């Protein structure tokens, strides 16, 4: 689009335009030129998968969001004498994330948006390069990263499994769907997601009437014979359950959950990994001015904006906000700013996003999507909290096991 070219021209014009910055906070570079900031983007080697081909992620899933956030930063940067660029690296299978982070740092990236699995994220954070960096976790929902294994140099933009589970469960209980049949996949991630859902049910007064495991037998997700086979398999699998109101699927590995709706033995709604899904973003969402961001993104990338894209956008915008408030000079200053009262991220979610000081998790509302529309946004009305209703989502300050070293 022509906007990108003109933006570059405007970036040059920005140099001349702002002889006197109007607001006292951001200081122009000492030589009167543009302050440039390199943002790193480090992403996992493996591809995420999905049952529906409509849900298969684009090649630039996540990174496109960070690039869109960078564009927004750069528009502000024209007025403030700042410019942002992205240094992206995708790990090769088996590649050392610590070395990859060091390479990004050699390119000047101190702030690094990370779409990494939990183990790789910790490797990067604990490395020598990690010591001088601030990582923004956009791709790992693991509770452990925010609890026992929390790190002082990792900010969690992505909502945790407990936050997602609480967002969903609050709504289910508002619907008075108390009795839940939990179906769990056989992979580790599925079990962690199930743990979060169970904790949430216990926390808010739901009841898991039975838990069943759906073993991944290694079948093809989209075989030609799939429809006929699945149509026989799922009713049998869900038969003879105690009375329940809603079926909850814990299937992060995308093996079976999408097959549950319309095929379960009992006519009950499905939620969790299929049906009603808690998520950081949905391309159908248009509240709180979100349409503007959706359209901006679609014009640039010719596809819909996903939750991972939104996490990338938020990470990039956090760094942009730090720069605009003269707090991006070093990672310590940025962290201090993010934890201060001055930080408020406007992310089209109806209220400001702020950072939890006890584990560096971004406080945020969570959308509940049926795949076509946003059904609701949690926290639900009536779930009270003495400090912030957003803290009814996820592990709260008194519960946290995070102790920064």
């Amino acid at each position, binding site marked *: 689009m022509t906007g990108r070219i003109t933006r570059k021209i*405007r970036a040059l014009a920005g140099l001349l335009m702002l002889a006197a910055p109007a607001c006292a906070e951001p200081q122009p570079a000492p030589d009167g030129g543009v302050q440039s900031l390199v943002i790193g983007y480090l992403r996992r080697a493996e591809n995420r998968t999905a049952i529906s081909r409509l849900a298969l992620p684009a090649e630039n899933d996540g990174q496109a969001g960070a690039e869109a956030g960078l564009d927004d930063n750069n528009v502000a940067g024209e007025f403030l004498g700042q410019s942002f660029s992205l240094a992206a690296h995708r790990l090769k299978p088996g590649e050392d994330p610590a070395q990859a982070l060091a390479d990004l740092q050699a390119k000047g990236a101190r702030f690094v948006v990370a779409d990494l699995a939990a183990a790789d994220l910790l490797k990067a954070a604990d490395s020598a390069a990690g010591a001088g960096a601030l990582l923004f976790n956009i791709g790992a929902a693991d509770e452990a990263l925010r609890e026992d294994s929390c790190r002082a140099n990792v900010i969690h933009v992505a909502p945790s499994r407990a936050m997602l589970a609480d967002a969903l469960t609050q709504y289910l209980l508002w619907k008075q769907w108390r009795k839940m049949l939990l179906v769990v996949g056989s992979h580790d991630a599925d079990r962690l997601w199930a743990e979060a859902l169970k904790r949430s049910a216990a926390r808010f007064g739901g009841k898991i009437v039975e838990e069943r495991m759906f073993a991944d037998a290694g079948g093809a997700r989209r075989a030609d014979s799939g429809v006929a086979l699945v149509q026989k398999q799922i009713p049998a699998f869900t038969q003879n359950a105690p009375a329940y109101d809603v079926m909850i699927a814990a299937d992060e590995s995308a093996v079976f959950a999408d097959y549950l709706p319309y095929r379960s033995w009992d006519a009950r709604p499905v939620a969790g990994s299929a049906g009603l899904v808690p998520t950081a973003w949905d391309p159908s969402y248009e509240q709180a001015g979100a349409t*503007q961001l959706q*359209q901006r993104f679609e014009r640039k990338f010719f596809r819909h904006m996903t939750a991972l894209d939104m996490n990338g956008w938020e990470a990039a915008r956090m760094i942009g906000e730090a720069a*605009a408030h003269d707090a991006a000079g070093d990672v310590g200053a940025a962290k201090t700013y993010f934890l201060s009262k001055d930080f408020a*991220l406007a992310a089209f979610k109806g*209220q400001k996003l702020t950072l939890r000081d006890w584990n560096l998790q971004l406080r945020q509302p969570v959308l509940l999507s049926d795949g076509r529309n946003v059904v609701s946004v949690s926290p639900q009305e009536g779930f009270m909290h003495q400090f912030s209703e957003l803290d009814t989502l996820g592990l709260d300050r008194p519960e946290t096991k995070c102790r920064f070293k």
Partner: protein
Amino acid sequence: MPFQVSRAAFALALMTAPALATDAFVSNEKGNTISVIDVESLLLKKTIAVGQRPRGMAVSPDQKTLYVALGDDDKIATIDTGSLTVTGDFDAGRDPERIELSPDGKTLYATNEDSNFLTFFNLETRERLGGARLGVEPEGLAVSPDGKVVVATTETTSMAHFVDADRRKILANVLVDARPRMAAFTPDGKEVWVTAEIGGTVCIIDAETRKIVDRVKFEVPGLRAENVQPVGVNISRDGKLAFVSLGPANRVAVVDVKTRQPIKYLLVGQRVWHAAFTPDGKYLLAANGLSNDVSVIDVAALKVVKSIQVGESPWELAIPGQAKP
């Protein structure tokens, strides 16, 4: 007979004269209509189908024409305030949101939300004169009383951009609190009040030094700070009171302009957006986006005295016969 004809003509002239412009116009963002409220009786008088996503409105200095920004049609429609009919439209660039006129009525300013632009239109020829590039998602607009400066706010960039109205050049960019939605000059032209929806404040900018001199903060009893989201702001013509719409807090805050302190919170409808004073300054009418009504505030008593049902998702109000703050 000739006498009777001229009397009829005289009566007709009276009926369409601007002196009778006592209607309030409400843009219904999702209804794609303009609700017309009779300001004397405070009753809904007419609903005008206008086009897709009407939001910002402005009235010509002679009070005869209402301009309506149609965001999804990329146009500005004109409505005759006498006959209450749509008389035409012109291209406005992508997604015009809010519009204002220069005091002489010759130039129309529009914020184009989707293209980071403040666009200037010559109203005689209805041609685009050019504009100024702003930050991301321009929205709020205010024209200084002397007409020399236009202030536009950008939601994602969180700035109030001061633009020279003659040269169409940016004079200053003031970083304000998160997601600024609306700007208003005090009647003496000395201050610009900018609402910050996510920041939860009103930033007060000195119009001369173009620096933030103070912030108005709100504490609504029984409500969480994050639900207090300042959007609209209207300053009374005597410059004493500012009325700040607090969106999902369902309140309009009354702020003492001199002390910069809120003195009262008025309970209105749901998701209150923008407001306008009646020409006599007696009432402030405020549009409630979720409850689809307009709250009528008695300015002297500081009380909500009435609610008027309008179209779907009312957003902005314009009332001919008054200078818009």
